[in-house]
């Protein structure tokens, strides 16, 4: 065994994250590590990579006891990590990012030419041709992800940990990444692969370890392991109950259109939004699909007043709507759940209570003084209603699992009693169980009359969850899909080919 972890305990502020977890990886295998949010995957990885110290247990790496003093020590020992959130320096060049910490020197000075060559060669292995002298931030997320991987590999690692490496990659890029992973395996490097996407695990992994509630509950070969069994183990549920559920938990569609709520015509904002048109009715879940960089998030931000709008017409309840900032949008009854929970959603050090009521606070205050009785009532109600699992309303929200953080953010908007909720990737990076809860919640919210604009990269979420859906491509609406026309094939076709060119004018006529 290359790596053996046994009886690992770890608690944060008294809340156990790992309870006697074990994990073993052989050289030259690709090992999937899965579990619901809060199962302890991230904590196990942090223990392994030296970001945090275990409370108890043994770790043996390359046959020796292993207790890294920090991430650098782990890296020096041969363990490289690629995190879900890219942890590189955006303002420095790609070369600097790849070579940071292991710079090539000549006569005591940096040997820039050699380093540029190395960086370009490493990225070339993944089929990526970029100017390595330019800053990292000037490239799209997918390229940044590849740079993170190149950096990990450049350290001559014996074990590469990839924590949801595909969450910001397109399908083609995922295939490139899989090629790299297979190449690493052939070279005898072990890869720990963390992902919520089962298909990816089956495509690339040899074995799987399942964590649940901080314990290791299953270790087996991927080959011949039924997907259903894997899901059931992860959830700790009976097989038959999973079998009854669909791929998503949205439930029945309404199949009809509500009264018009939001109408967007030819919206333009910055380079990414070049002509987006869409409609959301009361009680509808409207999907927005598109590849990375199609302008979905930017559209949401422009509608919410977070970014400046360059043109186009937006009406809310038939009246022109041009918010000068998020405050205007919130007062008009709109909420926006952002894609990036950590950077744009939670205030990690503040309590669940403060985070949950952040948008509502102005309304909870009279003469600037917060009515704490009403605040506590609102918080208690939503913790119960959304089943937010926390040690209490005063627990810092940063300590919750991703799924529960997302519920707090949903509650932040729901408690403002909005009419339109914009959800940007509402189920990204959260476990299967919490995902199902949130999908069911979205449907329940729509049934109560709320209009939902749901941006998602998961096609089945769009197809099963939305009453109708729009596909964006290069900042423009290229397809409006309804009823039987809303199929996986149609969505993918529109993403790939842009459906019928110049469609937006006739499309608006079609349902005016």
């Amino acid at each position, binding site marked *: 065994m290359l790596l053996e972890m046994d009886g690992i305990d770890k608690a944060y502020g008294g809340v156990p994250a790992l309870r006697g977890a074990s994990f073993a990886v052989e050289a030259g295998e690709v090992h999937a590590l899965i579990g619901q949010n809060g199962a302890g995957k991230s904590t196990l990885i942090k223990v392994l990579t030296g970001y945090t110290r275990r409370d108890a247990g043994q770790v043996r790496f390359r046959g020796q006891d292993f207790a890294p003093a920090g991430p650098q020590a782990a890296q020096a020992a041969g363990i490289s990590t690629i995190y879900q959130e890219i942890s590189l320096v955006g303002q420095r060049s790609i070369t600097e990012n790849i070579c940071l910490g292991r710079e090539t020197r000549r006569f005591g000075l940096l040997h820039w030419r050699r380093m540029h060559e190395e960086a370009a060669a490493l990225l070339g292995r993944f089929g990526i041709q970029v100017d390595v002298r330019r800053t990292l931030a000037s490239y799209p997320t997918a390229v940044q992800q590849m740079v993170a991987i190149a950096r990990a590999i450049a350290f001559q690692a014996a074990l590469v940990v990839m924590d949801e490496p595909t969450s910001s990659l397109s399908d083609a890029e995922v295939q490139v990444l899989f090629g790299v992973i297979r190449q690493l395996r052939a070279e005898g490097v072990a890869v720990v692969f963390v992902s919520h996407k089962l298909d990816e695990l089956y495509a690339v992994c040899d074995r799987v370890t399942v964590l649940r509630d901080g314990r290791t509950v299953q270790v087996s070969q991927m080959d011949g392991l039924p997907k259903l069994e894997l899901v059931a183990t992860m959830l700790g*549920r009976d097989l038959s109950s999973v079998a009854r559920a669909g791929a998503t938990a949205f439930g029945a569609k309404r199949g009809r259109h509500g009264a018009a709520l939001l109408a967007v015509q030819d919206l333009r904002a910055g380079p990414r939004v070049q002509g987006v048109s869409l409609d959301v009715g009361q009680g509808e879940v409207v999907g927005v699909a598109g590849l990375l960089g199609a302008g979905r998030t930017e559209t949401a931000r422009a509608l919410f007043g977070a970014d400046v709008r360059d043109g186009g017409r937006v009406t809310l309840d038939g009246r022109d709507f041009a918010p000068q900032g*998020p405050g205007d949008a919130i007062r008009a009854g709109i909420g926006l759940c952002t894609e990036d929970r950590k950077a744009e959603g939670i*205030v990690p050090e503040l309590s669940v209570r403060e985070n949950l009521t952040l*948008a509502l606070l*102005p309304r909870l205050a009279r003469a600037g003084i917060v009515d704490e009785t009403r605040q506590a009532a609102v918080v208690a109600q939503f913790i119960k209603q959304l089943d937010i699992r926390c040690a209490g309303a005063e627990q810092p929200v940063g300590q919750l699992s991703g799924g529960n953080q997302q519920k707090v953010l949903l509650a932040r908007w729901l408690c403002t009693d909005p009419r339109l909720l914009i959800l940007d990737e509402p189920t990204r990076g959260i476990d299967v169980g919490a995902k199902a809860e949130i999908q069911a919640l979205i449907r329940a919210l729509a049934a109560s009359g709320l209009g939902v604009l749901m941006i998602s990269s998961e096609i089945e979420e769009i197809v099963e969850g939305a009453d109708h859906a729009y596909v964006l491509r290069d900042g423009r609406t290229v397809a409006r899909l309804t009823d039987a026309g809303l199929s996986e094939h149609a969505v993918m076709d529109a993403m790939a080919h842009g459906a019928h060119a110049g469609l937006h004018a006739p499309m608006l006529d079609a349902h005016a």
Partner: protein
Amino acid sequence: MLERVAVPAAPPVRRVTVTALLARHGAVVALAALILLALVATPNFLSMRTLNVNLTQVAGIVIVALGMTLVVATGGIDLSVGSLMAIAGALAPMLFLGRLVPLPAPWVGVALALTVPVLVTGAFGWFNGWLVTRYRIQPIVATLVLLIAGRGIAQVVTNGNLQAFRNPAFQVIGLGRLLGLPVQVWLMAALVLLFAWAMRRTLFGRQILAVGGNERAARLAGVPVSRVKRRVYVISGLCAGVAGLVVIAINSAADANLVGLGMELDAIAAVAVGGTALSGGRARIGGTLVGALVIQMVRYILLALGVPDAAALVAKAGLIIGAVWLQRQGRVA
């Protein structure tokens, strides 16, 4: 409405480590230790006179540090407070001595001297906030402008002259007594209570913490980030103005070269020792009070033992380093 799908987590067990405890209450422990040291090492520590001397001296630090706490909680810093004190200190005597505007009655001069300088420093605070929000200048650079220019302004206004005065009505805020304690101590106590209440109970207080904790998230949740930031700098400016008046009232003189000199460091040290994260998102008003007392005790003990002022600065630096180290321990734990 929703079904539980996962096993509920076990009830959390709170385990408190010594370092975590120290990180939370380190300033109180340090203060207790310093008081013990003072009892042993300095003569006559346990007297009303000593208490009053210490409280009188600490009041100015506390008042400035309160405003600083809010600025730091938004993730900013205000280096201009000492210079703003000098501006307030320069303006007040000119007002009650009638050098700026003719006075119909002496009380008008005192009323003007107690209000106008504070409003002026508040306006300078607004300027700091405007630089920070409008041009996105880093607070340390933006407030550096007035750290340098502010004292210059005070010197120009007074032609660099020392203004000595005797005005009992004005000097109540520095020399007056109420129930045996100096008036400025009551003022300080009232402000501490006001700030502590405001941070806990008001919308503004919660928004300060949200801005400091995650500015982008706060903006998207509808928090008027720029307005909140401008206001904390205004408040810091107002606090500096009040402290400036108190200091000149105590001294019966205003010297633009000396009023508030080095106060920005004392205030930042008090905030840091008090446990407010310098990275923003946290504000401990009570901590700031304790932090200021710690700094005052260090200064008093060193003075009483005959250690030169310059060496006291080194001790202060050590304190800040210790406080920040403890804060980091608290994060990790």
